[in-house]
């Protein structure tokens, strides 16, 4: 399953502080969208509003709408817990559950809410998810070993396997390669290309080559200065952003003149 996301007039606040101002964006299903921009420009904050993870920080709130195939994620009576099970997230640093084995890690999300799953179904799901994350061949012989014993790149792919095991509609990635070496980064990037066959993928990255390599569309965020809100400057097909941007600041950023 893959769903589209439409963001309408979204403002993100931390308490009284306006962190991200007035974002409008349409994210197509089965595509990879990259968010780029200098540090502190609000791209991670914005990403986290797409599955209501920003609410973990007290005082955070939004105005505006985020529509997942037309359903407002911030509508009345919408449970953030349900939102997060439909929109998965992969974080900056690999975070497998250290007390769980590789197998348990993959099944962690599936077993939530006391859902029961038969052993054969579980075996199948573990294999499919790990295959989907290009990790099966590396770990199939040691599924009962702790997930924290894997290398950084393997751990990150385990986290991706854990996300796709719950069959989300969208996968959000917050700088998924920033803690990985180049080889592992390549493995994750290859995986992102495969994931878009089935999922809507949104990725925040500091690495512009990465955005150019993996994404179909790119959004450039910028900030006018410290204490000012972050804004969406330009949102266009990736080729256009990197080769022929319509905004001066986008061109300055992608050509390395600042940021």
């Amino acid at each position, binding site marked *: 399953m893959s769903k589209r996301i439409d963001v309408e007039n979204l403002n993100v606040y931390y308490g009284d502080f306006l962190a991200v101002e007035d974002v409008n964006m349409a994210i197509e299903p089965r595509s990879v969208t990259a968010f780029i921009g200098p540090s502190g420009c609000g791209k991670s904050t914005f990403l986290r509003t797409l*599955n209501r*993870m920003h609410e*973990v920080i*007290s005082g955070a709130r939004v105005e505006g709408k985020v529509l997942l195939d037309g359903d407002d994620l911030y509508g009345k009576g919408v449970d953030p*817990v*349900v939102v*997060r*099970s*439909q929109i*998965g*997230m992969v*974080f900056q*640093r690999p*975070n*497998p*559950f*250290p*007390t*769980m084995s590789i197998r348990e890690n993959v099944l*962690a*999300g599936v077993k*939530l*809410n006391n859902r029961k799953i038969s052993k054969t179904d579980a075996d199948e799901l573990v294999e499919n998810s790990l295959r989907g994350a290009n990790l099966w061949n590396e770990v199939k012989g040691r599924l009962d070993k*702790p997930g*924290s*014993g894997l290398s950084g790149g393997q751990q990150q792919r385990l*986290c991706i396997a*854990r*996300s796709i095991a*719950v069959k989300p509609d969208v996968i959000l990635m917050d700088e998924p390669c920033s803690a990985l070496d180049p080889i592992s980064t390549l493995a994750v990037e290859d995986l992102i290309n495969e994931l878009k066959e089935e999922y809507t993928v949104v990725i925040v990255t500091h690495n512009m080559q990465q955005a150019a390599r993996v994404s179909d569309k790119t959004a450039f965020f910028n900030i006018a200065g410290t204490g000012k809100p972050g804004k969406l400057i330009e949102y266009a097909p990736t080729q256009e952003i990197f080769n022929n941007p319509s905004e001066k600041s986008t061109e300055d950023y992608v050509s390395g003149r600042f940021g």
Partner: protein
Amino acid sequence: MSISADALKPSGNKRTQTKDLPDVGNPAADKIFSGISLAAGILILVVLAAVAIFLVAQALPVFTADSEDLTSGSFLKYILPLTIGTLIASTIALLLATPIGIGVALFISHYAPARLSKGIGYVIDLLAAIPSVIFGAWGASVLAPKIVPFYDWLATYLGFLPIFEGPASQTGKTILTAGIVLGIMILPIITSMCREIFIQTPKLQEEAALGLGATRWEMIRMTVFPFARGGIISAVMLALGRALGETMAVTLVLASGPLTASLITSGNQTFASEIALNFPEAYGLRMSELIAAGLVLFVITLIVNVIARLIVSRYKEFSGAN
């Protein structure tokens, strides 16, 4: 940089210095400090050994004495009820304090708004600062009389269980009351240690759970408890150590007597209370007997600690430390 480093250098330092190597500090100070650390470490072992030797040496006469001269005919008969009494009181305390302590710690670390949680934290720490004699006095003069109707109720409706067999004590000075007071006393230890550990749960792991669609309680079960398991066990064992050795509160609250199964009649006795009550008038063999009882308590505490260590190390591979 180099000027300030020179200025800070002690004047007595006559060490020559090559130009390309930075000053690594005063080697004499290093030696003194490492000596002090080593001495401190050894001192702990010496103190522990001294305590053990003192206890064994002073207790020795009991094991060679004529059995007729001992209080209960044999040392084992004397020690057994005390062991059981001590364990009963401590178990009651732990059963009460562990769930409440963990619950309060969780509330402070993960549920309460920031401002409220700080206030509660201070109050809990304050509870730890109350001297045990105060707890004892409160238990004996306030809690014990107030709890009598509850004991009567237990004796009437649950009296078929040996532990609630009547008639209930009309002063309320029972091992159950002592256990409750002990539970309140060890509550701050469990709460503050658990809180410290709970708030150290890596944010990244908590977010991993939430990101999968976990509710707050599921997140706590998936990340906070596994992360804190070793710490919770340590906290409980530390609290158990205090409960086992607590003297004053039990002495004041408990109307001691011979071992009985019922928790709501007067009777039973703990090691620490037994020693404290009888020590002032004891001499000769009786003194040795009390010290031997102390030795047994010492050994029990040691065993408790070893078991705690074993439990903690069993989960090492999955602890998150790697």
